[in-house]
Every structure is written in C-alpha cells, then in structure tokens.
C-alpha cells in the first residue's frame, strides 16, 4: 500500500519579524526589482521559460524568485510544489517517507543520490534531529522522461547524448527540519509529514526504509533547477529560511583580523547554530568517523552540526586589497535588491517572506551544454559562483571541487556502487541528479520488488 506522504499541511502566518527586515536591507540595488504581476502571491504566474531573454543578470534572479513564489503559492490549500511528483514515483515506486542526506545502507532498496561525493554525512539540528530532504519534478520533466521512455535503462544507454531537457523542465529539492513539540514557528512553513526512522546497522547509522513516523516538518531550504530558453544546463537557484545560519564574516567585516579557526561566527543563536561557535566547529562532517551516535528510541543524534553559511549570495567576498569584480558585485546587489523588494511586496502574514534567495548560477553562454562537461572550474559559469544551500550542501560550501551546483551537476558519465548496475554514459541529461537516480533506480527496481514480495 502506498503511504500517504506530505499530505498534511500547516500554514502558520504571523507577522514578519524585525530581524528579517534588517537582514534583507543591505546591498540593495535600484536596478533589479520584482515584477508587479508576481503579486499577490496567490496569483504568481509561472515564469515564461520560453520567453527568457538571457540579457541581464537580474533576469536570472527574477526567474528564480518568480519560480519560488509560483512554487509556494497556495493551490487548493497547499503550496503548489507539494502536488508535484517525487522522482521515484516515475518508476511506480512508493516512498515510505523522507530521507536524510547521509550515507545510507548499502542495501539496494534505499533511495540514494548516486555520486554525491562529499555530501556524505547527516546534518543534525540543535535538537539532535536529522534534517530531511524531499525531491519533486514538474510535469514537463515527468512528461519528457515518460515520452522518451527514460525509465528504461537500455533506452537511456542509447539516448542521444546531446538531447537536453526541454524548456520548462524543473526539479526541486527541499530540506526540512523536524520540529519539536511546542516548537511551532509563525515564520516558517510547517506541515505534517512522514520521515523514515534511523537505526544503527552494520556499524553505521542508516535509514530504515520500512519504518516511518509522522512529525512536524519545517521548511528550511529550497533548491530550484529549471530549464529556460537558451539554458539547458538549468538555472540553479536556492533559497533558505532567514534564521538558518549566520554568514561567515567577510574580510571587510573582520578587518583588521582575518578569518581563522578560532573566529566566532556569530554571537547569537540561529536555527542551526549555537551562539559563540568558532569557525573550526562549523560545518564539521562526521560521516567518516565513529563520533556520530544515534539513540534509536528518541531518534536523536549527537553531536549537533553547527552550520555557517560560507558565502553570502554564493560568492567569495572580495579581498579588501583588491577591486571587487563588478560582475559579482552586480550579481550580489541584484539578489539583495530582489530579496528586499519581494519581502516588501508580500503581505505581512505571508510565511514565504521569511525566506530569501541565497543565489543562483547558470552558464554565461547560450545553449552551452554538451555531454562530458566536468564543469570543474568557473570558466563558463556566472552568477553565484560559490553557491551552496547551508542546509543541503552544508559540508562542501568552500571546497573548489564542490563549491557550486555545477561541480556535481555536470554531464560526465556516472558510476554507482557494486558491479551489477550499468554506468550512465555522458549525457546532457546527467545535469539532473533526479534523472541519474531514476536511471540507477530503474536498474534496481526488480530486486526491490522481489524483496518487497518476500
């Protein structure tokens, strides 16, 4: 029986806090503003992906924000994105609940993002709970997969490597904090949902795919990736809740000191950060150690992950001694301006005004996607070049080999564990990890079904 999931909602709308207003008030730009037809939020139209002109940096961020508003607008009592299809449903598979990002069981039944190197590791909130993730595909994405029979691995292996996703295809990833009883917040989207329980198995902390529990989930991070005209690589935008984590101070803010292991990142508490935590204790990934422990009964983990956002707006702040890169400055100003403009335009009881765009990244060239691109450097990238969502790519914000979406979302061939699954050839479609997962899951499906029948 298919488990109902994410079917309950809880919108809690109260006034926006002063903190949020202050947070979005700097680096504003007069140039990049929200468009009037985005509002009211209940009527935000889907961006016209086909009409995308690729003329200004602002246009990309406007698309990002419009997408966020469109995806979160209330449709039949819940945000639009919750009616979209999770990737595994394309294969007719059911999910028992949300999965934390972590090293999961080696068993074939686990849903897993393949080759997400560097993102091993469970993110543990201040309450000792794992942060959970969910993925969604829009109808254009789903239709493309279905029409091309890309749930059949043999079809994928013979698929034209140059064919990209169609304009309008969108995939999403959302991160969720498990709310504690009595911890309901007026400024965060919270709903009821089912999550997989964790257990200690084979010396690891793993997901139990067969046991779930219903919890209250607060939305803390939101990835949007979508194809617009001229950008088959997708625009990759990410949003976070305003109280997630402090930004690592810029060199200007630290001057005359410099960032070091003992730099205190913030003197106040954040959702995922304890006041006074030093830089050396931020974003520490315990995946390789035996230091992370799970109490199965309470489903709590130790120690807590202290999260710091490495780069505000997803760009390395300029060195005080060098002239800022005007392109980056414009990018950052545009984001700040849009954040401020949208927040001002949303009604004060709209919970989504407590979220902000961290940044967005895309190709600097039109229709530049090719199979076999490693995208290991920023040569053809633009926008927020070191973009991470602090709740999703917590542990790889700073390392040049994984410090933006395209480092991992590239079009290289892909491998997976074991010797039973065929690798994925280098395709333009590989830019989507949802697609990659579908490809590997589709090879795993028979064994999963067999197991389920046993």
């Amino acid at each position, binding site marked *: 029986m298919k488990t109902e999931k994410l079917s309950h909602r809880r919108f809690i709308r109260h006034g926006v806090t002063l903190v949020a207003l202050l947070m979005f008030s700097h680096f504003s730009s007069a140039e990049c503003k929200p468009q009037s037809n985005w509002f009211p939020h209940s009527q935000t139209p889907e961006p016209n992906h086909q009409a995308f002109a690729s003329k200004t940096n602002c246009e990309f961020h406007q698309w990002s924000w419009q997408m966020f508003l469109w995806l979160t607008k209330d449709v039949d009592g819940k945000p639009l994105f919750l009616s979209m299809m999770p990737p595994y449903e394309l294969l007719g598979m059911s999910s028992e609940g949300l999965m934390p990002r972590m090293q999961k069981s080696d068993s074939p039944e686990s849903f897993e993002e393949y080759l997400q190197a560097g993102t091993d590791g469970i993110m543990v909130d201040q309450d000792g709970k794992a942060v959970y993730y969910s993925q969604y595909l829009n109808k254009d994405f789903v239709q493309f997969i279905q029409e091309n029979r890309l749930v059949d691995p043999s079809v994928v292996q013979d698929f034209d490597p140059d064919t990209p996703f169609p304009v309008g295809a969108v995939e999403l990833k959302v991160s969720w904090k498990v709310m504690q009883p009595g911890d309901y917040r007026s400024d965060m989207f919270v709903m009821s949902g089912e999550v997989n329980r964790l257990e200690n198995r084979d010396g690891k902390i793993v997901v139990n795919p067969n046991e779930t529990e219903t919890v209250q989930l607060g939305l803390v991070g939101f990835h949007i990736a979508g194809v617009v005209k001229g950008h088959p690589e997708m625009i990759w935008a990410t949003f976070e809740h305003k109280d997630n984590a402090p930004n690592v101070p810029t060199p200007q803010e630290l001057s005359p000191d410099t960032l070091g292991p003992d730099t205190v990142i913030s003197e106040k508490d954040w959702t995922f950060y304890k006041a006074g935590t030093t830089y050396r204790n931020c974003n520490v990934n*315990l995946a390789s*150690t*035996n230091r992370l422990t799970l109490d199965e009964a309470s489903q709590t983990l130790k120690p807590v992950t202290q999260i710091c956002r490495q780069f505000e707006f997803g760009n390395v702040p300029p060195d005080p001694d060098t002239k800022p890169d005007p392109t980056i400055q414009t990018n950052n100003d545009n984001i700040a301006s849009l954040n401020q403009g949208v927040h001002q335009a949303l009604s004060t009881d709209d919970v989504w005004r407590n979220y902000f765009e961290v940044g967005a990244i895309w190709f600097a060239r039109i229709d530049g996607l090719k199979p*076999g691109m490693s995208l290991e450097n920023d040569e053809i990238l633009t926008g927020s070049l070191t973009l991470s969502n602090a709740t999703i790519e917590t542990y790889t914000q700073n390392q040049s080999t*994984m410090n933006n979406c395209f480092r991992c979302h590239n079009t290289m061939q892909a491998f997976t*564990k*074991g*010797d039973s699954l065929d690798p994925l050839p280098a395709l333009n479609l590989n830019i989507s990890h949802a697609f990659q997962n579908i490809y590997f899951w589709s090879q795993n499906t028979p064994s999963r079904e067999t197991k389920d029948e046993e």
Partner: protein
Amino acid sequence: MSEAYFRVHPSINFARVGTSAEFYIAPETAAGKVVDKTTGQFGGLPIKKGTENIPIEEADLRDEKNNPLRQAARFRVFAYDQPQQQYPAEDHGREVKVGDTVGGKVIQDIVWQVHLANKKANNYRITSDVDGEKKEEGVVAYEDGKTPPLRNPQIPGSASDANRLRTLVIDAGPRALSVAQGNGGPVPFNASTPASHVNQKGQVESISDYPFSFPDDHFTLYNPRGPIDSLGEMQLEAGTGRLLVTGGYGKASGIITDGAPPELNDAIDNNKWFDDTSDGPVIATIVFNDGSITQAVQGWIVCTDPGFAPQTRNVVSCWDDIYNTWVEQLGLVPEMFANGQYNASYDAAFDEHVQPIFHAALLQRWNTNLPSGGVNGHNFVASIQPGDDPKKKIPNLKSLIRDPNKPEEDEEGVKMPLALGDAMRSFLSLSPTQYFLLMQWYDGKSTESAPALGEGERLDQVALENCLGGRYSPGIDLTFIVRDVHFYEQNWQGKTGPFRVNMQTLDYSKVQSDKPFLSEGYIPLRSAPVEPGDLCKFMSLPWHTDYNSCATHTPDPNKPKGNNTLYWSWPGQRPVNVYPASQCTFDGDKWNLGGQVFSVRGNEGHGTETGYPQQEGRYQCYFDFVENWQKVGFIIQGTQIPAEQGGHYGSDKFLEVASLFETDGQVVEPWPTAVLPGYKAPTDCGPKG
C-alpha cells in the same frame, strides 16, 4: 660446459627502517594483485623471518618492546642457460644455491658482498631556485649541465670536494659473507666491524684500513635517537644461503653549532642533518668446484622509509615509471614501442596492465578520506573482469583518466588519478606506457593474461611494484632518477638483463685510510656510474620531514585558478586517513567498519591537531615526527588481524593496527577538504638546544 649466466634478483630491493633489532622480509608479492582468489588475499605483505613466503600478521609488526620491526631485503642468485635477448626472457632461469650443479660444475660457494653508504648530505637539494622560487623540477634540474644548489653550503667546495666527501658522506664500507664458510652473520655496517670484500679468488678478505665515515667522526652531533653509528647488517638466510640485508633504525642527527642543534624546518632539504638510510650494490660471486669463479650481475639494496601500508598499491608504482623508461628509451619491448611510437595493434594484458590500476584505485580508500561516491566508483572499476566489454563498463575512459601525453590535462583536478604530480606537473598521471596499455584494452586489444615471467624477473618487478611512483617530490623509496637512462646499465641484452643499476666497479685494493673511498658518483643526465649511496642521496634529508609533510596539499606548482582543494601526495604509500581495527564492531556475523582517524595523530610536542585543513594529519613541528614516527600504525588486510570473534576481520578490509598513538586525534572529514589561509607554523619547534 655450456656458458651459464648468473644474476642477483631482485635487481633492486628495499629494506626499510625500524627501531627493532628484529626484522621481517620484504614482500615478494605485489600490492594490488590477488595472490589467493579463494581467500581474497592481496599481495604486498612482508614475509615472516625464517619462512619462504608466510605473510606477516598483526603480531609480527612490532617486537616485545613495541618497536616496529625493520624490513630486510632478501636477495637470491639465479642461473640462466641462455643470454637474454628479449623481455620477458625466454629462459626463466632458476634459483641456485651452494651444491647445485650449473653447466656441469658444482657451486661450491656463493660469496655475498654489500657496500652501504648515505650521500644525502653531500648531494644537491631537491628544490631548485627557479626565478626566485623553490621548485621541484625533477630530472629537468640537471639538464644543460645544471644542478640544483648543494645541500650544506656551509661546508665549502663542490660535491667532489675531498673534505665534503670525507665529512658529509656516511660510508659504512663493504662487507662480505661466504655461504660455504658457514658464518652467516649478521655482520654490522658499523665502524667497529672490519670492512671486507670478495677478492679475485672468490674469498672473503678483510680491509683493515677502510676509511669508514659516520657523522660523529667529524662533528659534534645532536643525536635525539642515538648516534648514527651503523647503517644496518647483512646476514645469510639459514638453510638457503640467500642474502638478507637490514638497514638503519630511523635515526636523524644534527650538527651542533654554537652549542645548539640545527633547525629542522624544511620538508625536504635540511642542512646539518643526517639520517641512517642507505643504499649500495649487492654482489654475488659464485665459486665452482673447479676453482673457477664468476660474478653474478649485481643487485642493489635501498634502505628507506617504513612501509606503513604495504598492501596499498600506488596507482603509479615505481615499477610503472621504470618500465616506461625501459619501454620508451631502452628498447625493452620493441613490439610495443619502437621508432618513437607505440604499436597500435599491440595487445595489453588485463591481469598485468589493467587490473592493477583498478585495484590500486580500489585500495586507496584505506589510506585516504575518499567519500562514499569515490569508494563506490573505485569498487565498480575494480569489479571489471577480463571478459567484460570495456566500453559498457566505462562509457568514456578518456574523460575519466588524465592523459599523460596532454599537458593541458596536467591541471584538470577532476580526472583520475586524483592525486598530486611531480616535476612541475600539478596532478598525477599514469605513465605513458600504462596509459597506452589501458587504452589498448579499452579499444578491445587485450588478452586476459600476460606471459609468465621467470621467478627472477618476477621478483625484480614485484620489489618495484611495491614502491611509490609518479610523484617524486622526492618520494619514499626511489625518485626521479628512475626516469634517467644514465642510471641504468643500458646494454641489457646478453649477459646483464634489464633494470640493472649502472654500477661503478669498486676496486677495494685502492682503499686508503686517509682518503674518502667514494666520490661524487652518479649525477642525473651524466655518464658517471652509480656508487653506494647514489640512490638514496636524492631523497629527503632526513626522510622524516618529507614523510610528515606529505599528507595532503594543494596542487603545485600550477594550481588551477581558484582551486583550494587538498589532494593526496602519496595516498598509496603514506597513509593519511585510516580505519583502526579497534573501531570495528562485530555484529554476531561479521565485522563492520568503524570510523576513520588520521594515521599520524599524536599529541606529543606541538601535536598534530590544527584548525587548518592543509596541516592536518601531520605533526605541526617536523621534529615531533622525528621523535615519534615509530608510533605510526600499519595498515594490513583483515585476514592478517586475528580476532576472537569471526577469526579475523575479513579480507574486504584493510585496517590500521599496532598504532601507538594514544589519541584518536581530530575529526577526519570526507574529501574534499580545502585550505584555510593564514596558517603560521609554530616558532618554537624542536630540537631544543
């Protein structure tokens, strides 16, 4: 009688330092090659002393006082009936011992002679000054008559200066042992044991006035691990008459100046320091019952760093570099490479040319912090079998593997191998020969197995396969000199065979007690033959600093723009992150893997912990490693680690055992990690005066 040809094998073999007087024997199987398909046992394990080939276990790594054992190099004499015309030799030869008959004559005696020396302090620096910057150019630094600057410039003169030779070269002289005389040793390479050699009659003859040279003879030394008064011992293996050579004890000593020991602050070139590593020729003289004698083609002993991860194969081994040099420059396999190009129709052998690369990738996880994605990918390629369709298994091999023939790929930090390069190349590449053979397999031009080698040639290869290649900065066992044809005896066809050091014949009748016996010796790209001490002199002085330093680094010197990621220097040979057996858990059925710790994680002195990722996994002060290196644990296969439950830890794991560090150290995070600028080394590192 028909003429017979005698050769010592391995052509080059490796002893390793330890602090115990005891020893085990250098491995005679290759890391990364499965030696027992039933148990899944991989090669590379050293051999228990007194046995033919029983691999060591956990209990064999340290003595009763917890000192790590030294590794002895074992040499044998082989006889061949045919002169060698090709490689591999058609005549597989056979090991011979006293009493065996060869060509109608009985071998009456085999007299072994070894001469050990250490010329590090009189050699050139590893780093050249290029445009005001210190660069590691490798053999390029010796082009056009140039050399890097000399070490120890405070002692005037060139590397040929008599005073420098007399005071800076550690020369323990030759020793000889006769199998027939029954005195199997050990004979120490120290100043109190007379030098000896084999004379023209095939007899052991003492050299009464040999000009031994040890550092304390010439300087007032700071000896934190005791004086360097010996470079090891040689002895005969009981029952076989094979030669066993053990080296030094991992000592490092510094010249006291103005009452204070010298600073130890460079990763590679430290003036006023000595260590007790060494190298030298291994000569076997065969004496027949008719009184005739013949000298076998010599081997060479190198005593170097400990092998803390003997079973982890380097993706590029020293063998791969040497084989590449011989294929491309010395006509070793003309059907593969001739007239400056590879033969596009040449068949690679899966078991010899392909699988070892994939197995090396498989094994890297046990010494590094590879994330699960990398481990999965490596496991996948290691599962490829000879019957598999290469293109089905790896859709695009060229996008996965760095092409050594394309300089533009030197700076691609995502291609494999994911480790650092040398000689001004940022990243490691397969050798051109390795790459060619891998691509031949990929293009469907391969066989399942390579032709079998004779046992002697197999030993030659195995000894080098177990050593570091690819990144000679300067390295661990041998260095960039293996890419220089002048280093070898090039006229290999006929009597000699390949892979032999171009040995300087040493005439001990000319020994003078008041004159250094050894000269400057071999210089890369020059024709001077190779003397004792000429191999290890290109290594770090002392070795400890380079070992400590070479955990992870950013790409150097040509760092790709914006790249702040840390990559491994010597992931196969210098473990950075390890899985202690003590952290594994038994679940009633099997042992489960525990967590990772840094291999070098002590808290002695200034300790190893740091907030700067680029400094992790090493002592913050070099001297603290000099004092504590013996505490580093060993990584061996789970089958060699007995356990009360399950019998052992399983062949699927390679775990750290026998570490003496009393702390788990700081957290190991999965790769990638990145540099945090602003690190300042401690200013009060030892040694203290």
